Each structure stands twice: as C-alpha cells, then as structure tokens.
C-alpha cells in the first residue's frame, strides 16, 4: 500500500470549502455591481434577483466569510494544529534562494526541484495574501454595510476611499485566485484535471519527496513515515 502524508486536517479542508464557496458568491455579486454599467453586469444583477437581492446575497456570503475568518484566527491562535499551520507557513530566509531554483526548474534549465519544506514560498505568500485581503475586505465591507451611519463616523473622502479599496481589493483577490490559484491546482503540469488534496487532505509520500523534499526528510527523521 502506498504510504500517504497528511497535508490538511479535516477542519482545514472544511474551512477551505466554506471559504471558497463564500468567495464565489461574493465575487459574482460584487463584480456584477462593479460592472453594473455593462450588459453582462446587468444580466448578472438580474440573475441574482435584482439590485437589492444582490446586496442581501453579498452580505450573507460576507457573514459566512466573516465566520470562517474568525474561526480560522481562533484556531491559529489557540489550537496546537493551528499554531503548527502558521509555523509551516512562516517564510524563511532560505526560501528566497529556493525561488531561483524554482524558476530554473519551471523553465526546464535545471532538473533539480527546489528544496521546499511543507509549503513553497508561493504558497506561503498566497496564505498571507488571503489573510491580508480578507481582513481588508471585511473591514472596508463593514463600514460600507453601515451605509449612511458609516458616513456619520467617517468623513466622506474616507468613505470614498473605503468603497474604492473594497472594489479594487476584491478585484485583486479575484484575479489572483483565477490566474494563480486555479491555474496551479488545475492546470499546472502534473495537476490536471485537479489536485485532489483539498478533498483527501493528503498526498502520497512519493509526491511529498518530489515536491517538498525538506518536509519529506523531516518526516523521515521524526519517524512519521518510513522510507
């Protein structure tokens, strides 16, 4: 039997599913508003049940996002597994050197894969990008949700910026997910049609040895897997 390496806990997998479901709804309802002056935007708004229903849908999805964000922050602060996750995601100075290897390997000018730990620097950047992006969206979104009451708290110009940042940050997250994350997990060489680890939570020991050699060595040392 092929040995497996556990990569994500069940809780993390569920968080991921809840996160991406809420993000899909948020992106569809948000982008349709952003592009309300185009035929596609107007069609989307109609599909979402009109302008007001669109708003309600967006805010319900936002509540789900907020819930999963709060849950995640609790888990990384107060649970052992959560704290380990953050440690695994922490960038290391040695990662910078591995970027060069990664690019050379990707381009085919070297056959030696980069010596990544559990997560590559790309994945680490994505994780903190998501944290930062979601925080930005939640904070700006809450002010926008307050509407005129929010305008009583913040001067008009700051509300203008809040609205602008909410839209542009949303666009940024959408583009990263579409062109980077979805590419990597579906279309990158070796991952077509889909990397299954988001469901199974595990990869084979062989995959781990190829893609995350430093992690593989650590697992051998600690005896979590047998060579």
């Amino acid at each position, binding site marked *: 039997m092929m040995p497996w390496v556990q990569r994500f806990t069940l809780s993390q997998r569920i968080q991921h599913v809840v996160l991406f479901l809420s993000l899909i709804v948020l992106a569809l309802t948000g982008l349709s508003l952003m592009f309300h*002056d185009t035929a596609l935007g107007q069609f989307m708004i109609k599909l979402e049940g009109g*302008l007001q229903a669109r708003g309600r849908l967006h805010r319900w999805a936002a509540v789900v996002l907020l819930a999963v964000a709060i849950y995640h922050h609790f888990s990384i602060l107060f649970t052992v597994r959560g704290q380990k996750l953050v440690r695994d995601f922490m960038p290391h100075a040695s990662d910078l050197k591995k970027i060069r290897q990664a690019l050379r390997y990707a381009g085919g000018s070297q056959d030696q894969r980069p010596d990544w730990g559990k997560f590559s620097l790309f994945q680490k950047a994505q994780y903190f990008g998501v944290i930062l992006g979601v925080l930005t969206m939640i904070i700006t979104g809450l002010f926008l949700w307050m509407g*005129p009451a929010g305008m009583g708290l913040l001067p008009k110009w700051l509300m203008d910026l809040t609205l602008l*940042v909410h839209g542009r940050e949303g666009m940024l997250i959408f*583009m990263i997910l579409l062109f980077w994350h979805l*590419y990597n997990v579906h279309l990158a*060489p070796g991952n077509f049609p889909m990397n299954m680890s988001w469901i199974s939570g595990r990869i084979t020991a062989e995959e781990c040895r190829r893609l995350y050699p430093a992690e593989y060595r650590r697992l051998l040392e600690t005896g979590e897997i047998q060579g």
Partner: protein
Amino acid sequence: MRQADSMRSTCFLLLALLAVTPAAAATTSVADCQKCHANQNLAQLDNRGQALSLFVDPAKYAVSAHGGLECAACHVDLAQMTQLPHPANLRPVVCSSCHLAEGQEFAASSHAQLVSEANPPGMNCATCHGSHDILSPQNPKSPTSRSNLSALCLTCHENESDTISVQAEVKAYRKSVHGRRALTQGDALAAQCVDCHGSHKILPRDNPNSSINKPHIPETCGRCHAAVLADYRGSIHGKAIAAGVMDAPVCTDCHGEHTIEMSQVSTSSVSAEHIPETCGRCHENVQLTEKYGMAAGRFSTYSDSYHGLANQYGKTVAANCASCHGYHHILAPTDPASSVHPNHLAATCGKCHPNAGENFTKGKMHVQATLENSPGVFFVRRFYYIFIGALMVAFIAYIILEYTGFLKRRRHRRGA
C-alpha cells in the same frame, strides 16, 4: 352635378345684373345688399374659373361680431357707389384698417408669407376667423374660441399630405399634459398651439422675434408659469441665457416641448427616473463641459454612486440631481446661496439622512477623480491598477515559463 349648379348660378348672376334697373342710392344699407346677396345661388366665376358663392347668410351675419355694421364698413368701395347692382370685383376687404395691431402682426408672420404662386389663396384673416359669420373668440361657437382653437390649427397642420403637417408634434401634444387638459378635459387654461406659438404673430423658431425663439421661451412659458419664471431667472441657467449664452437650457431643453409631462409621471423627462439623463445631456457632454469649464462626467459619476444605482434600479426615493441641486432655481455649487454650497450641504443631505453632519461635507461629490481634486482616490486607483497589472504579467510569464519547461522535459524524455 356641382358644375351644372355653378353654371346655373353664373347665369343667374348675369341675368340679375341685366335685370335690376339702376337705382339711385345715397348709402347702401345691409337691407339693400341683401336684396341680392341673401340669394343662396348668387355666385360668380373667380379668376381661376371656379364658382365663388356670393351668398351672405342674413341670419349668420346678424349674430356675427360685425352684425351691427353696414356692409360698406368693410367693403369700402360701396361707400362711393351710388348705383346698385355694383360692378363685379370689389376691392378685397382690409381688416387691418380697423384691427391695426393684429394686421401688423399678421403681416410679419409666417402665415402671411404663404401667399405664393403655388398657393394663390394663401392665408388671410378669414382663413381662421371666417368672414360674414365671424364670431368673437369669447363666443364658444367661434372657431377661434378656446374650445376650438387647437382643432382650428390642426385642420391644416395635421393634414397628412401637406408639407406644413406637424403630425409627430401634434401626436405628442395630444398625449402631453397640456394636450390632455386642453383637448380631453376641456381645461380652457391649458396651453394650446397659439399660447406658445402666438396667433397673429406666429413665426418660425429661428426667427429672433418668435415667441418660441430660444431666448424668448422662458417668458413664453412664464406667461402661465409666472412663479417658475421668477425662479428660473435667478438661476445659473436663467442668468446664462440672459447673458446670451445660448448653450444654457431654457424650459424646453429639460421639459420637452410638445411632449411635456408632469414630473410625477414616470415617462416625463423631468421625472425622478429620467432627470439624471436629462441633466446629463449637457453635464455629461464633453464639448459643453470643456467649453464652459464645468466638472466632467457628472452623470456617469452619479450613476456609479449609491444614489445613481438605486435610481437606475427603480428606487425613486433615492436622491436624483434635483433632490440636492434644486431645479428651476439651480445655482452653481460655489454660490453661497446654493443648496450644495459646503455651508448648506449638511442641511441638504439632512433632508434624507438625519445623521448628516460635518463628515458628509468633507469630500467631493460625484467627481471624476484627478490628482488635483482627489489625490487619495487617484493614488489608490493608480496603485491597484499597477499592482494588479504587474501581478497578471508575472503570472502569465510564470505560466509560459512552466509550460516551456514542461514541454522541454517531455521532448527530452521521448527523445531518450
């Protein structure tokens, strides 16, 4: 049949002229004239060879506006004539010898120009007023009374085949608030054709003396809408027109002409639903905003705002242009009396937002953000533009790189 009739009439006239013996008459009374002209068949051939009835209905004449006058009062030749029957072809009646002002106005009007080769009878007083049966406009039976007036104009102007047909306008007018009130509800005060276009003095709109020439439109509408006119004259639009800036709007530019409708009706150009695009016709027009140094894109930036979006999706309770700026008495935002001057902004916003305070006024309202007027928005926008753009370039470059390597390795494997 008709030709036979006219032939008979002509014969009768000639016979009459021969038969009646010349008689001395110091003055010709109405009764004298009626000896011949009360005959329904009295007629002659006009200069185009068509029968021209010379019959004057004594009953109609008696009750006409001129019923008390002798025939010679209008047919002035008769005063010199001592013998009856008088010779044929009296000089044409000149109404303006009494109705001086109307005569002068008519002489300068478009209708007076209609006499031409192609249209020999042209138009004269009788075309609208009638002749021997003329009635005062105060008489409801008169074609020129308020109740018949528009129908009178339409006898010519709704004629399909005619070049003077203005069917589209007439159709629109019938549906408009003026047309509905005047024509179907019988409201004598509602505007009819002549109220805006003038009656005797009617002129095309490009004539500077026309009541519907652009700078005269406010006073024309103001004849009925006096309070609105006073408001408008004090507004930035009214002052601009008074100063000769003809790009500024007059009443019809916002309200329409024949299509005019109450603001409460959703199809109106000044309804809550349509006012943004109506104002936007000028305030979104690059030529005009450039020419007069007005802020650009007022409509598109409004459309992107909460108010604009809500309005587009049918929430007419949301603020439109007029809610904040006012309408007839609209002023420049820099004018201290303006409802959108910074001093009044909190109060203006407060009409809908009870919590409106200082914070509402600290910022720009629906402007196209530039480095000068909104540096914050400008830089944030620029930052995301560059950041997203750079990331996309990097991603696509990486994807190309990765697939190049992938294909290279595969070729290598197969080659080996």
